[in-house]
């Protein structure tokens, strides 16, 4: 009986080498020191002098950009020691911690803007994390890889494989991304949670924002990432004011 299983394993092993669109999907590597395009998008959404919390801030490049260009009072949360060290060297107040466990300790309205970039799909409980974001920040900027992108769909539909892309570069067995969603799914969650979508955009495979507003289903098909600016809905706003 083990013979049949072996054959299946072999076939899978062969297919694993070189997904056809992996190379085409590669985002342009920004030159050293130049700001990433998705960071520029965030920059455009943050008011000067705002108090900003960047969750999963990495080496602090977005916070440093916001501080230098917008004069924001920025704070970061980062899981990796390397990231924390890099932030300290930049003079950024960063806390070694975890979005899933640490957000509960922040008071309501602690920040003007809370940024969660490419991280929500890696949290244990995205809905609770989003609840905290909306509670802690007056505005929430959130970006995530769109699992509804046509290439992702094609990979699943035609090749029957979990997609591996520049934004989601790990294989299914080692990816930290445990809660993938599509742009449409996320819009649905926002409605369910009474979160107001102030602005939204989709980024193309090269990380550039789509120029025109399009129906959700189009973005959901051609956007590689979704970027949303959210606020508490009216009901939540009223509750928090009480």
């Amino acid at each position, binding site marked *: 009986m083990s013979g049949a299983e072996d054959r299946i394993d072999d076939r899978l092993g062969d297919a694993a080498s070189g997904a056809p669109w992996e190379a085409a999907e590669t985002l342009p590597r920004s030159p050293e020191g130049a700001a990433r395009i998705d960071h520029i998008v965030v920059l455009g959404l943050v008011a000067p002098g705002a*108090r900003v919390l960047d969750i999963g801030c990495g080496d602090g490049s977005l916070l440093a950009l916001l501080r230098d260009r917008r004069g924001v*009072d920025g*704070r970061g949360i980062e899981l990796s*020691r390397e990231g*924390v*060290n890099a*932030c*300290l*060297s*930049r*003079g*950024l*107040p*960063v*806390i*070694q*911690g975890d979005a899933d466990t640490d957000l509960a*300790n*922040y*008071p309501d309205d*602690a920040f003007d803007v809370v940024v969660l970039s490419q991280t929500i799909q890696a949290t244990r409980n995205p809905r609770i994390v989003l609840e905290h974001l909306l509670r802690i920040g007056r505005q929430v900027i959130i970006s995530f890889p769109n699992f509804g992108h046509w290439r992702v769909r094609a990979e699943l539909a035609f090749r029957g494989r979990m997609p591996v892309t520049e934004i989601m570069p790990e294989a299914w067995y080692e990816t930290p991304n445990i809660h993938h969603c599509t742009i449409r799914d996320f819009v649905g969650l926002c409605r369910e949670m009474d979160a107001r979508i102030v602005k939204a955009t989709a980024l193309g495979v090269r990380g550039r924002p789509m120029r025109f507003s399009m129906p959700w289903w189009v973005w959901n098909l051609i956007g590689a990432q979704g970027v949303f600016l959210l606020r508490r809905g009216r009901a939540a706003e009223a509750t928090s004011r009480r």
Partner: protein
Amino acid sequence: MDSTLTQDAEARAPRTGFEASPASDPRSPVALFGADEPLALDAGVAFAPFRIAYQTAGTLNAERSNAVLICHALTGDQHFAHRHPVTNKPGWWETLVGPGKPVDTDRYFVVCSNVLGSCMGSTGPASIDPATGRPYGLDFPLVTIRDMVRAQAMLLDRLGIPDLFLCIGGSMGGMQVLQWASLFPQRVFAAMPIATGARHSAQNIAFHEVGRQAIMADPAWAEGRYLDEGSRPSKGLGVARMGAHITYLSEPALHRKFGRRLQNRAAPTFSFNADFQIESYLRHQGLSFVERFDANAYLYLTRAMDYFDLAEDHGGVLAHAFRGSKTRFCVMSFTSDWLFPTADSRAIVHALNAVAAPVAFVEVESDKGHDAFLLDEPTLFSAARGFIDAAARARGL
């Protein structure tokens, strides 16, 4: 800095009384505070006269803006970067402090004073009570972490230091850093509390109590009057140190260092000799400690730590201790520290977040336990360097 003043102070230091204990000659400058400058202790006593022994390294700049205060731990002293006068060992924080080190003595003026109640030259229970002409013993008033900090502030006033660029310390030193930031927020630009907590836990109080009971159970302790009787509770103090020393390490570190290896023998002796290396090591720790430390000072300083609860001082809400603080903080803990575990540091971070104070937090991966802050820990150094350098840029140093 008014060097003549401190030189004078050193020259005027009374020679009587401090010879009572072998560890009492500070071999460092001292600042004297007379009857006209009493310290209002939390115990309700206006304490005077007293003296504070200290050491410095580096030079205070013309703007007086580059001062660093190092706060030492329970059994530490002012000899942070100077050869120890009793043990002849290098300064206890030469790993972190010195020329080109993260706390760079080429750039900063670094001060460290022996805490009030200790026995390395600052007034403590082994000092002579001017009212009786005998060592204070248990007549010495209970001091708190806040009292120590107030005494340090008086020393800084004396040295002409208006405010601190950085206040840094580990363990009991970290408690002082937190107390400084809470009591004198406008005098602390940057603060680094390391391997510490905003309160002493029940478990920590328990360990301290065991140590104190060991000292008091030693007949030579003589109700605290051993200096009058010419005796020393060395056995009790040694046992106290042995017990405490275990709490400064970790099980993996003990295993790595000693395992079950035997001490200079091939087989167990079927006796209560120190067959195991760990036993021999702990006995050595106890023996060497009693040569440099006063038993009553150990009682007083452990008590000061037990009483420390910064939240309790502020209506039970730790965040209130830091309300309106402009100080930038870098809190650090070590993964294997079970005396002041990471959760204690996180509680500090949460409180600082709640009042929107700029706070960084680093948990250093180490198997060396609580003592890791005194040891060679590259992550500690790189994080400290990053934080301190950035703070210096922000202050224009």
